[in-house]
């Protein structure tokens, strides 16, 4: 969807990160969903890089 097409729609937001941003959207009755995000592979750098390699191989 181009930027100008976006301008014609109701904004519908997926929020990933600080939950306060989601709460602000909900307080204005905007459509939003908050992702209960966690760092990939528990944030372990080596595991993340192995997973990335696997993803690329697939």
């Amino acid at each position, binding site marked *: *969807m181009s930027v100008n097409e976006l301008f014609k729609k109701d904004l519908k937001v997926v929020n990933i990160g*600080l939950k306060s*941003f989601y*709460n602000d959207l909900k307080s204005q009755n905007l459509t939003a*969903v*908050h*992702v209960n995000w966690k*760092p990939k592979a*528990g*944030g372990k750098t080596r595991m993340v890089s192995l997973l990335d390699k696997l993803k690329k191989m697939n």
Partner: protein
Amino acid sequence: MIIQTIVKKNAYYDSVTLMLLSRELKKLEGVEEILVGMGTDLNIELVQNLGLFSGELESITSNDLFISAKFDETRTNLEAIEAAFVEQLNKTDQKEADDDYQPPTLKSALQYLPDANMVVVSVPGQSAADVVDEALDNDLHVMLFSDNVSVEDELRLKQKAVNKGLLVMGPDCGTAIINGAPLCFANAVRRGRIGVVGASGTGTQEVTVQIHQMGGGLSQVIGTGGRDLKEEIGGLMMIQGFQALIDDPETDLIVLISKPPAASVAEKIYRIARQSAKPVVIDFIGGDRAAIEAVGAIACISLEDAARKAMAKLNGQKVADFVGFSLPEAEIEQIVDKAVATLKPDQTELRALFTGGTLADEAMKLLGGRYAIYSNIPLSPEMAIENMPDQKGHLCLDLGEDRFTRGRPHPMIDPQTRTEFFRSHVDEQTAVILVDVVLGFGSHADPAGAVVDSVREVRKRLGKVGREVVVVASVCGTDLDSQNLERSVRALESEGVIVMPSNAQAVRLTDRVFQRLEKGN
């Protein structure tokens, strides 16, 4: 005193929640120092710097939560600290709409909300590029609030977005209003015919707020992140946003806001501006006026001036530089007279304590070469704060800059950093304290109240040595913001703060006071 740590495996909370919790827990009886955080490298370094490191942290991952505390074991214990932590966390949760379904991934979120069109990303910087990649792969526009994203990632993501006709607003993008929906740190403003593309957060907020206060409204406010107009990124998002506003039938006039861009980037923007059938107002704060006017765009001397010129042009009125005050000159003189009369001859210094970086930058540029001002974002390298001799001289700080926000929330969210600077950097030689008060979504519930508390405290302290101090403020906010413009102004004025209607006017008034002081009252 002993140091003890609790580690909770696989318990993820966002950094702002935990930083605010740390601050609350530090108030506990017997606790000298405490840090609650996720086990990221940055937090572990912070724990070491605070002298709170213990063996439990050696095998921690960034998916684990820790509480490290130094406390007096005769007055409290780890169980009591943990109980207080749980209690505070429950309080936070109760404030939130927690009954809503929270999918664990973007993929599952899109099953739940298949017609989503925007992803707001504020995860830690090292994870942000992955999240944005996935959003772009799903043809979604992105607002990227996270900082600490590499220039290489920014360029790659923005190129990918441009190829797909999508927005990547950021990294480090604080404010945007898309289709009337304020994202992250935006003010509540009415909708209207003016479109804005801004590379600087509080600069964009100030312009949108001023347009609202003058009776105007905003069609779209697109953020780009502060690095967008640097050579490396080439202005990809400003150009993308600019073009979209040119093509948008709901936008009649376009305002562009940024610090001065790289020459090659400015050229690209000027080329589009020259061809635009819609009027274009450009505030490249302190930038090249002649170059802007040469392409038929309207150049500005301040953020307020940008808003005024946009409104004048839109309403078919004369467009002229606004160099003065909203109040009549005689009233301004009276305010200056009254302020200067309270000061002693050796009160000569400025303490400008800003929460908004662009507002601090604008203040220094408007004060021009007339004063030597030390800063953490200095106009020239020799005026860096490190070169300030024994805290003597004028000082203007951007308290939201990285060095002041390590391990603590941005001062727009939590005013504590500024409260501490009121204590440590205002002294008997201070003549004027200049502050911004930024309202809006994302900001503290009562930033004016926090300034009032600090001013009261500083007046009490200086009063003991027979001194007063002049405090000048501007409030970046509207009547529609939850903190409310009028209520905030009233609270500040009741504490004797001189409240001006814009940052530019607050700076100009400060300038008048110093001009008068230099003349010897």
